[in-house]
């Protein structure tokens, strides 16, 4: 479902962020991406939703080689993915409901379907009762739940999360992880870049460690493996 073959990425400033990456992630897997800062985790993640293109090599998502994808095809790719960020990226002037609905509105979904789907995902993340509130009225954990709701509202096959617990306290982090596990048990692939050693070591999943742009470890049920 996600497959990288000999992926090499060099930025214009000379930094090599991916140096021969080969990896296969099957549909329905849950994968942690770990590694020191600046090792290439973000680039690895960004190449999956075509925010960055590899300098050479193939990145295959849902049977399409997105390394060779035309610009006009990127929107379709992104409709089949969900992306969650450390800083939530919610729109401050829109309510919880509107923030989630936004993702379907801009892909011109029918209003009736939008309402139905938004209510479903808000129910899943436990925020149905706060749907009229603004993001500023919510806690960090709740805001991240809204952003997860937005990422899955289009029923993606893959959810990509870049440090989703990075801004949260431990309690909220566990809440978020529960939601990701729930999403995963429904058959969605989850790829999560994280620095949270406790989570990785407790909720055991496949761990891919990236160092200097290369895969240093790839172990099912592995541990975090770094100090601090």
């Amino acid at each position: 479902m996600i497959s990288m073959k000999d992926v090499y990425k060099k930025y214009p400033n000379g930094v090599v962020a991916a140096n021969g990456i080969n990896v296969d992630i099957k549909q329905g897997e849950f994968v942690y991406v770990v590694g020191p800062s600046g090792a290439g985790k973000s680039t690895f993640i960004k190449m999956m939703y075509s925010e960055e293109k590899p300098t050479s090599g193939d990145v295959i998502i849902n049977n399409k080689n997105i390394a060779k994808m035309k610009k006009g095809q990127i929107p379709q790719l992104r409709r089949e993915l969900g992306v969650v960020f450390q800083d939530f990226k919610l729109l401050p002037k829109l309510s919880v409901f509107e923030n989630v609905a936004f993702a379907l509105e801009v892909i011109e979904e029918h209003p009736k379907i939008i309402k139905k789907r938004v209510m479903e995902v808000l129910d899943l993340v436990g925020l149905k009762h706060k749907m009229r509130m603004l993001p500023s009225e919510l806690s960090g954990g709740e805001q991240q739940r809204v952003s997860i709701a937005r990422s899955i509202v289009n029923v993606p096959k893959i959810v990509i999360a870049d440090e989703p617990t990075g801004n949260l306290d431990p309690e909220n982090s566990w809440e978020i992880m529960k939601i990701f596990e729930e999403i995963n048990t429904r058959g969605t692939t989850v790829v999560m870049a994280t620095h949270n050693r406790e989570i990785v070591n407790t909720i055991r999943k496949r761990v891919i460690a990236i160092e200097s742009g290369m895969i240093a470890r790839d172990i099912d049920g592995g541990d975090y493996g770094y100090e601090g």
Partner: protein
Amino acid sequence: MEVTTVMKGRTIRRHFRESFKSLGRNAWMTFASVSAVTVTLLLVGVFAIIMMNLNNTATSVEDDVEIKVLIEIIDDEQQAKAAENQLIKEVKNISGVAEVKYSTKDDELNILIDTLGDEFKLYEQSNPLRSALYVKASDPTQILAISDKIKKLDNVHNVVDGKDTYENLFSFLETGRNIGIVLILGLLFTVIFLISNTIRITIIARKDEIEIMKLVGATNSFVRIPFLLEGMWIGILGSIIPMAIVSTAYYNLHKVLAPELKGQLLQLLDVSPLIWQVNTLIILLGIFIGLWGSFMSVRKFLRV
């Protein structure tokens, strides 16, 4: 597979709503841009009206340009008749001559009396004037060459070709037109730059929104259209006042001046269709600079 771009009704409504919201959100920038468009289009309108009227005058002058050939006086009537006929034949044979009109010295005197007054009836007793030929060229720019050829013919006393007057008029018109075009082009670029700046500010203000749109798979055109519309509204808003001013001003000017100018060289064009032509020019130019201005910013700041 690319995302289909068939636009739905509610999408169009959404684009319109978003573009209007942006206009309001940057009220001051919008105001500045609309004002600049207004001033520019007003100048364009006034200039267009002046140029179209002058061009019309020039064309009618150009059509009227003719050579007047004064014929030598020959006392013997029969000889004179023969010489005149010979001359008419020779002039007609010159290439580029479209029309030759013969006017006897009595005709000439009548013209004089008509234009200058009855006092000249005194000369009816002994007419000192010469008979003349009025020559029109098929191409007015050939006037000079033709009059040179006529001068060389026999029995030609003098040739009046009015060349100086009409050449002066044309060079004056051309200078005026060039200065106007340079001025307006300069203004147009300033305005396009202003609009593109306004749109840039809108784009920056909505950076986060655009980022999320792209992330969840909104198409490029979906992201861009509201900004292009916003530029277009600025152009349209900026063309309203110029259209109103130019229309009422020309309507009133025409009402006052047209009767005064009867029989003069300078003639004002009729209010309709001139006003419709100029208004169309103003609004199309408004839309064009609005779209172009926003397109410049959109292309620069809305890359995937």
